[in-house]
């Protein structure tokens, strides 16, 4: 069954495994630094907590013929501006060539999250003006927390996920794994980058598996708001389909406990 | 800063606040008297906005402390209620960082001594007056790592609670 043919049902989980949901708009060139700072200040009321990270690059020029003449330069490469809500669950990030809106768990639902992005995008544009968009993407990081049954019992990821790393039987049981897959999405003129890995579990007596879905279009990105929002809505449907294809009913039962 | 916003040492030490009790030469506080321990908000157990007790850690020594600081209640003159108020005000003068949400724990000296000795800690509870708090005492030889002792002090010895906010 193709993604387009998959039954798109709005699954409403009482405990969705989403740890972070991200909208990212990447520009073809960097925003002028003074303008970034203006944009950053513009979001102060919506995201009162602010942090600024100055990335420094140390460039070492080595002269093999005369090592003594080698020298190092420290350059201020770029500034990352990050703002968050008081409970730290809503983030806004500004890097030189991208505008990012992020939502940590608990996930409030698409309508709320998308609505926030639309408002923030509007606010961004009021100050930054038009910036040519190179890439638009939606990324959902999920963490499936699987309780380990009492006793020396093994967990089989394929009981919960349809994406995992399979190794020959002769190698015995796995301790951990990490995998990455890139799929083309012709209906989107975009790509799906899918990461999965065993991650340290934040819970006792659990094994946690990360399922990171990044759906994006790079090249030919829409420039008008209505097209941007339409693309994101399309991405949402695809992302939901992908997620449902990746999990089993056993996983679904964990999300409704 | 005291709870009413005054700098602790702006208030003068009241004349004649001492009850005038004579101590033995050793300066040890006799068993029949009481001492008061200050606990900041983070070491207080609060339920439904009411102080109901103290965490054992309210009685723990900090790494740079050589003794446990307490204030002798009966150093101060007056009826028991007045003595407590004087003791708290003396403490506030000596400690500029008294938090509004803090509280004071009061316990009997004899019980403190008995519980320490029962755990092989031969403590000395000595009157060591300070400029701003003439009732100040030091519990010397207090152990650093006795969770059981801290627990019994917090739960069964220092059982009288006075929220700081209740004393103007």
């Amino acid at each position: 069954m193709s993604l387009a043919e998959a039954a798109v049902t709005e699954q409403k989980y009482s405990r969705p495994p989403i740890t972070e949901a991200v909208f990212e708009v990447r520009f073809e060139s960097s925003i002028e630094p003074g303008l970034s700072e203006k944009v950053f200040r513009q979001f102060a009321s919506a995201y009162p907590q602010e942090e600024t990270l100055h990335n420094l690059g140390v460039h070492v020029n080595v002269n093999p013929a005369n090592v003594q003449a080698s020298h190092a330069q420290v350059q201020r490469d770029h500034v990352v501006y990050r703002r968050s809500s008081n409970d730290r669950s809503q983030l806004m990030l500004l890097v030189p060539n991208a505008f990012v809106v992020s939502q940590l768990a608990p996930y409030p639902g698409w309508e709320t999250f998308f609505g926030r992005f639309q408002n923030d995008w509007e606010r961004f544009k009021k100050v930054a003006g038009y910036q040519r968009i190179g890439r638009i993407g939606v990324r959902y990081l999920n963490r499936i927390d699987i309780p380990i049954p009492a006793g020396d019992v093994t967990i089989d990821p394929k009981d919960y996920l349809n994406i995992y790393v399979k190794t020959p039987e002769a190698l015995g049981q796995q301790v951990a794994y990490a995998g990455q897959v890139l799929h083309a999405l012709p209906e989107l003129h975009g790509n799906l980058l899918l990461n999965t890995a065993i991650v340290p579990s934040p819970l006792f007596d659990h094994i946690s598996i990360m399922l990171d879905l990044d759906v994006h279009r790079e090249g030919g990105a829409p420039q008008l708001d209505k097209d941007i929002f339409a693309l994101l809505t399309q991405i949402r449907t695809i992302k939901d389909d992908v997620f449902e294809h990746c999990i089993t009913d056993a996983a679904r039962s964990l999300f409704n406990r | 800063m005291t709870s009413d916003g005054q700098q602790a040492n702006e208030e003068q030490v009241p004349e004649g606040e001492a009850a005038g009790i004579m101590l033995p030469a050793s300066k040890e506080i006799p068993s029949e008297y009481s001492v008061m321990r200050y606990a900041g908000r983070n070491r207080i157990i609060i339920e439904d906005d009411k102080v109901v007790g103290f965490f054992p850690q309210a009685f723990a020594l900090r790494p740079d402390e050589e003794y446990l600081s307490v204030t002798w209640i009966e150093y101060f003159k007056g009826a028991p209620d007045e003595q407590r108020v004087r003791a708290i005000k003396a403490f506030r003068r000596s400690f500029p960082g008294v938090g509004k949400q803090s509280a004071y724990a009061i316990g009997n000296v004899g019980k403190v001594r008995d519980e320490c000795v029962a755990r092989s800690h031969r403590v000395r509870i000595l009157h060591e007056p300070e400029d701003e708090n003439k009732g100040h005492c030091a519990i010397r030889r207090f152990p650093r790592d006795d969770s059981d002792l801290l627990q019994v002090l917090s739960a069964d010895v220092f059982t009288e609670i006075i929220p700081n906010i209740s004393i103007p």
Partner: protein
Amino acid sequence: MSTLSPVPTDVRSRAVAALAQPPALLERVISADTLRGVNKAQALKTSEPPSAISTQSGTALDQRVFDALANAKTFAAMVSMHLDKAWREKLFNQLDDLHDLSEWETGDEPVEQKSFITFLKTFIALDPRRRPSLGMTHDGHILMAWVRGSDRLTLEFLENDSVRWTVTMTIDGNKERAAGQTVATRLTQTLAPYSLQDWLSNDK
């Protein structure tokens, strides 16, 4: 085969960390063709999510408090799907109260992240119906207490899933006291003689 072997948590954590590292010294030992393939795969590597991008910490108290609270709340967000919404909001309010600078004692440290992680993991595992009181030691360890009259149970959360506990309880008219330290996963067994479930329940 795809089954995961039942190894201890720390063994699995080290394996996960090793998988996250880029291959070292690879360029010296493989062919150019293979290296090109490796570099292509590395290029696919997904960037850090916004929540993982951390900023530099300052040394001034208010900056340290800010950073500590931010880290604690971010970790709480990561497990919020396992927390009751009302409790999560109350927890954040309690955390803010514990870091009220107007109540701050000189020499105190803000919440220690490893202690907070042990606390939250334990809280989720115990799932108390009766909410505890929270406090903090001067070195930033989270404290938790339940009080019933003159009885009380207190927990101090240390790093590495370790918990220091004290209990005072009246049993058959006699006062019993105990104190100890254990790993959080054994708390239920360790405190079984003191009816841990009764402390966590709203019934008594």
